[in-house]
């Protein structure tokens, strides 16, 4: 058993590059999904039925597709429409688009639960449109939705493992290569699990500090 971990250690360069890919991919996807969510949430809340309906259709649609299938669809579908991206960018696009729907729904839920008066005060004091959303609506939303957003970021890290199917050299892909090359499945995969756990701890720490900022305002 110790010997198996020794083999994994000897392949640490491969594992580390997989870890780096997972970390960078997840971080970019998390930020991009959240930013897209900032745009989608007001669309979900829009008073114009057409805008709200289109946003709702996208969000509900995304949430009902298994990510694995969605990754396949993006991987094979984009080239059909003449969009040619490398595996890495395809994976990032799939993760981002898919999770933007969740982020938007999380923000919408938190928005509906906000007291109406401070937003109304924003309108009465001359805030409108983007400035109203950015300065008055969004900050309390982020504070109250912080833990749920963190949860979704953990989900993004875990979803990124599916991208091994489009041969994106992320952490699961690296562990899988090591196990098939040396036949040390337990050692390879358990090492990957601990590395994923390490990434999640970083997210937890982030959620913790957002929580402290929010608590000071409660």
């Amino acid at each position, binding site marked *: 058993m110790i010997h198996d971990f020794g083999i994994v250690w000897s392949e640490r360069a491969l594992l580390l590059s997989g870890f780096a890919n997972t970390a960078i991919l997840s971080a970019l996807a998390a930020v991009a999904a959240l930013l897209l969510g900032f745009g989608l949430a007001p669309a979900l809340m829009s008073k114009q039925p057409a805008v709200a309906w289109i946003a709702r259709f996208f969000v509900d649609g995304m949430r009902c597709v298994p990510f694995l299938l969605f990754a396949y669809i993006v991987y094979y579908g984009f080239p059909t429409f003449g969009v040619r991206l490398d595996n890495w960018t395809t994976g990032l696009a799939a993760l981002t688009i898919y999770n933007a729907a969740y982020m938007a729904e999380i923000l919408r839920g938190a928005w509906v639960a906000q*007291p109406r*008066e*401070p937003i*109304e*005060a*924003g*309108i*009465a*004091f*001359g*805030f*409108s*449109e983007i*400035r109203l959303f950015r*300065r*008055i609506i969004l*900050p*309390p939303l982020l*504070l109250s939705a912080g833990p749920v957003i963190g949860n979704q970021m953990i989900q993004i890290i875990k979803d990124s493992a599916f991208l091994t199917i489009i041969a994106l050299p992320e952490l699961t892909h690296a562990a899988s290569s090591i196990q098939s090359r040396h036949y040390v499945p337990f050692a390879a995969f358990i090492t990957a699990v601990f590395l994923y756990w390490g990434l999640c701890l970083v997210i937890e720490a982030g959620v913790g500090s957002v929580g402290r900022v929010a608590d*000071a*305002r*409660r």
Partner: protein
Amino acid sequence: MATSDKVLDVAGVSKRFGDLEVLSDVSFTVDKGETVCVLGPSGSGKSTLLRCINWLEQPDAGQIYLNGTRVGINSAGTVMSDRDLSAIRTRIGMVFQHFALWPHLTVLQNLMEAPVQVQRRPKAEVRDEALALLAKVGLSEKRDAFPAKLSGGQKQRVGIARALAMRPDLLLFDEPTSALDPELVGEVLVVMRELAREGMTMVIVTHEMGFAREAATRVLFMDHGRAVETGSPQQFFSNPETERAQQFLQRYAGDTAAMRR
């Protein structure tokens, strides 16, 4: 049209929510430096009237002018863009029943937010003015506190200071003391009395009859969505013209007597 010292001109404003006519043909004016208290039973349309003035509610009919400028409708006769409406709203300060402070900002930031972000005034100047306003409402030491850490009375004093920080032409108060514990009402009324004395132009929806009697320059009595009676507080409280106002005042006197018992 509007004379130079007429700050607010409300002409024939009506508003309905579905089948319910909340305001019907309400007209009144407010001169510069006046404190107009809007009185009336619950559901008489007082708050809706106030919210129509800055178009938080869009009136179905009638006109509203602020210093001669039509609110909500532009010269072409169509509904204003959000941007144009915002420009007018920055000239009308509003104080809310439930304070409506922005929870993510400190007290000082609450005061500075709209003047800096919406009015685009220089930060240093706004800050100095905000600090002076906090001193005026007696909350200098709370400038770095978050609203959640304040008492109701303190929150409402911040609410008033926040509205004043906009240097508004007109201040609207929507039942500013209704959400307060009785022992906290006084500290807010003190600030409002001070503003009245200084000649701030104000429209105040309130149930504080004592305040209206001594601080108002004029009283507007509303019932069932209509402006039933207007006059000086002396005249209104001692010798109301309409039967409805008489009934309203009698009930209030009864309630006050019951409370004292």
